[in-house]
């Protein structure tokens, strides 16, 4: 068996060189958000962390992330102490930029470590598949756009998630998997979307005997329970003692936001809004009443309550109910078949459900689907067929995050590079499935990928030539997210079929 080249480390070195060159690139308000958190955690007592509101970007991540920022701030004072002053809003000296960007790159080593573990955990015969999947995650355009240009710390967080998934593959390390996931939840609560799958899996595979539901393993249950409670106690205990839990809840779950996020995450609600827009000119002819007050809301693209002109309003309860329903379906199978591959599939489907039906979903959350899915996309060609439209749609939907001219070539060329390279490599190495493939899925994904080219051209060039920069700004955004939504939904349906028939 030949060694696999290029190795993860080699790719990481070249990717790091590229990421360092991106230091002066566009950075979103998230850069200021994280600077502000560095300042808050460094200069205020813990008691005030969740009450401080000098900046509009208040601390709204769980306590471990705040602690993580505190650790970083201990180093930051050597780079530039001025960034640690709470009142220095919008402060971005070059030392600050170098420091914050460098921390993103450095903490991504966790991801590299996790991927390395993942490759090692796989049997020799399919090592090359795991290696290719790991490279695709390491070089993911999603992480590049969100972390290294837009600015966030997802690489490090997804590293922990993958570590936890790797540990879930062996009975002897399942406990670590649970602990890692608990830590992850205390770092960023978006992973709550995946928690049901973890709950079912840990319960079924660790606390109960995999062969029989009626033989609980008490000692395992105690170990897991104590560790998880300890971690949550460490994170939230002090705040509970100070009676701040309600304030934390307010910060962590701001339910006053609207259904669709500013940039229209490509989910079911984007398609719903799109339908609504199409119905507006048609409604008078069909005799449906139009709510004219709503006309100006979605098009503005601002964070706020979305209201629909023709179609019925969507309430939080609906979105919650739908999410739960579509999470529970795959979990039934996981309950019956509590094995690692089903678990990763269930995680992916939980990610899908929450992304497609959730309330106020960020387009960045698409990584919640792509990254777990990448780990099993190479299981066989059926999985890969479902993965393909997601890879295209998920990444194209991130394009509106970067709207500056200088970053346009970066995001498009890098994503195109990644898509060509990995879709080709995956296509070459993905094994033939045991069951026959579904004929339509392949045709659908090919057609779908082809459509993306004119779409990107229109959104980035032709639209501006026809309408200029000012008019109908929402149109490209709406096209992008409706197109991407179609891809995500299509790949979701495809994967459901694969998952339930596997």
């Amino acid at each position: 068996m030949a060694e696999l080249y290029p190795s993860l480390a080699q790719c990481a070195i070249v990717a790091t060189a590229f990421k360092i060159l991106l230091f002066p690139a566009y950075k979103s308000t998230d850069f200021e958000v994280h600077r502000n958190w560095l300042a808050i955690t460094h200069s205020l007592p813990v008691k005030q962390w969740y009450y401080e509101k000098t900046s509009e970007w208040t601390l709204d991540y769980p306590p471990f992330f705040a602690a993580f920022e505190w650790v970083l701030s201990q180093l930051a004072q050597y780079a530039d102490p001025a960034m640690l002053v709470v009142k220095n809003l919008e402060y971005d000296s070059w030392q600050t930029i170098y420091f914050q960007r460098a921390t993103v790159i450095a903490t991504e080593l966790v991801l590299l470590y996790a991927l390395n573990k993942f490759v090692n955990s796989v049997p020799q015969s399919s090592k090359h598949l795991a290696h290719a999947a790991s490279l695709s995650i390491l070089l993911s355009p999603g992480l590049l756009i969100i972390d290294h240009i837009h600015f966030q710390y997802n690489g490090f967080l997804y590293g922990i998630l993958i570590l936890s998934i790797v540990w879930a593959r062996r009975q002897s390390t399942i406990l670590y998997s649970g602990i890692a996931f608990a830590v992850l939840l205390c770092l960023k609560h978006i992973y709550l979307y995946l928690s049901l799958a973890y709950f079912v899996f840990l319960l079924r595979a660790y606390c109960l005997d995999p062969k029989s539901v009626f033989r609980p393993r008490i000692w395992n249950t105690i170990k897991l329970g104590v560790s998880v409670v300890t971690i949550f106690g460490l994170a939230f205990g002090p705040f509970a003692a100070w009676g701040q839990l309600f304030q934390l809840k307010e910060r962590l779950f701001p339910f006053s936001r609207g259904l669709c996020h500013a940039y229209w995450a490509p989910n079911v609600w984007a398609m719903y809004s799109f339908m609504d827009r199409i119905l507006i000119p048609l409604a008078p002819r069909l005799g449906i009443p139009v709510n004219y007050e709503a006309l100006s809301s979605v098009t503005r693209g601002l964070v706020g309550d979305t209201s629909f002109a023709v179609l019925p309003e969507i309430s939080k309860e609906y979105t919650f109910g739908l999410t739960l329903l579509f999470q529970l379906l795959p979990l039934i199978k996981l309950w019956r078949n509590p094995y690692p591959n089903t678990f990763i599939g269930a995680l992916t489907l939980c990610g899908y459900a929450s992304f497609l039906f959730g309330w106020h979903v960020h387009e960045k959350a698409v990584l919640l689907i792509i990254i777990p899915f990448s780990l099993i996309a190479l299981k066989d060609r059926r999985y890969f067929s479902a993965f393909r439209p997601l890879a295209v749609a998920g990444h194209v939907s991130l394009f509106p995050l970067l709207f500056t001219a200088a970053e346009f070539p970066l995001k498009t060329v890098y994503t195109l590079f990644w898509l060509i390279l990995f879709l080709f490599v995956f296509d070459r190495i993905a094994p033939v499935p045991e069951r026959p493939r579904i004929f339509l899925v392949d045709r659908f994904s090919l057609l779908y990928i082809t459509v993306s080219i004119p779409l990107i051209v229109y959104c980035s060039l032709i639209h501006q030539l026809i309408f200029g920069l000012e008019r109908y700004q929402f149109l490209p955004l709406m096209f992008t997210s409706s197109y991407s939504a179609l891809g995500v939904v299509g790949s979701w349906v495809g994967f459901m079929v694969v998952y339930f028939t596997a």
Partner: protein
Amino acid sequence: MASSTASYRPRKKRKSAALFAGSNNSLIVDAGEGKSTPAFPLVSFLWGARAGVSQWLVLPLTLMAVGLFRWAVSLWGYSGFQVPPMHGDFEAQRHWMEITIHLPIYKWYTYDLQYWGLDYPPLTAYHSWLLGKIGSVFDPTWFALDGSRGLEDPLLKVFMRATVIVSEYLVYIPAIVTFLRRYTRMQAVPVWSASIALSAILLQPATLLIDHGHFQFNTVMLGLFVASLDAIMAGRMLWACIFFVGALGFKQMALYYAPVMFAFLLGVCFIPRFRPIRLVCISLVTIATFAVLLLPLLLGATGLEARRNITSTVEPPLLQVLPFALDKTSSLYATLFQITQIIHRIFPFSRGLFEDKVANAWCAIHTFYKLHIFESDFLKRLSLGATLASISIPCGIIFRHPRASILLPAFATVAWGFFLFSFQVHEKSVLLPLLPMTLLIAGDGGLNKDTRSWVGWANMLGSWTLYPLLKRDGLQVPYFVMTILWAYLLGLPPTSWQIYQHQKFSDETGTAAEPHLITKLIHTAFYLAMLAWHVLEAFVLPPPEKPDLWVVINVLIGAGGFGISYLWCLWRLIVQSQRMDTRKEEDRKKIQ
């Protein structure tokens, strides 16, 4: 075979894999136990493309990857950013776009010469005109006459950066790709090695940093030169002339290559036998290309308005020394005025022997023995003599052996000679000798340890001598990232010293040439000196009475290294031409 009549031509057979077998020169190291590992990281990145992957996939991916690095470098600062009143090369190029689109053509070479007057040949002027026209579609204020001086709009930066990268992808990259394809086939180098060489060449740090960091259009000129080389390889001498005149017409710096080009083209007309028709054709095409290049400028100068304007402009010195007087209102006068003015602008003979600090012989000698004391005329003659001396041997060899296969070392040698000894050399001119020298890695055995170590070393040294310049532009980070990345990919110091250690290669056909002991010593000494210099420069202040000390040391080490590069290229050329002689000898014996 009876069927092989004149009308029947058998389909060209693809060179079989067997022909290439074993010549994947030392890319795969034998790691023992039947395992093989890539010899250096760049090989790992193309490991998957060893066999059975179409060039239609490898090539676009390579071009995208190198393009991304170019664009990422271009996010950083450029020369003259926030340095009023004159700014730098970025402003010069923008200013030329501004004047060419607003002024009548006869004013291009005379307008306000104090503020970045046009001093590049006509093709640059036309190129600027085209880019200025395109840019004005986006935003005419970027190029408003006089009003746009020193403009630093971020969108303007994006546009200007895009012009460099688009020009490069339209000229340099197609030229390099087609040249490499032909050259590697000629040298029987396998496709896989060629892809690796291509990536290495396109990531050459010095060229990338100067064009996309500092801001210049060198790759257009270099691309035209490579296109001309490609035409030579294909045996199309007339196209070679056209492309080469294009290179000269874009940037006069291409003159560094001219002596070899001249010797070669003359050689193919005389050796092995005199071919007068070819000689006439080559001369005519060259003259015609020059004429076409100049024609718009000359026609523009003959109009009534233009002639009136020209009479009131200061005569260029070349016109003043004409032995006869001319009617100042005639078209002939206007034409001559225009030509002499362009020549006067392009070749600034009135300036000093060298400008700033540049790693060539004069600047190095000047450090120890002040050259001011001599007359400027004497220095000019000295420089001319030294340059001629340094280029006479390679030119002679090329004239005697006008073979395409030994052109690269000849071009490199002559360009090094020019860089070291000629008049008015810029530090950026180091790109010229580096290009043909780097192209050597695409030849037969080019990626073996010996050639790779020399080419890599020269490139590292070249980028290193550019550091003081790049530092002024705020490009330290891209400098370190790109040079270290390149060194890493090619397995060079400071990232790995393996290239100087013994390795067992999986193909033991004798191509795994180990570098000589002297090579190892020289390279190690230079790498250590460069590293030490960076440490000193970063952490130790130079003594107050010698504020330029670090730059001077940089120049001295650089000049020494470039001298060695000159000698290595010359030696390479001599060895190759001798090998050619012996082969000819053997062929003759066989026939007898």
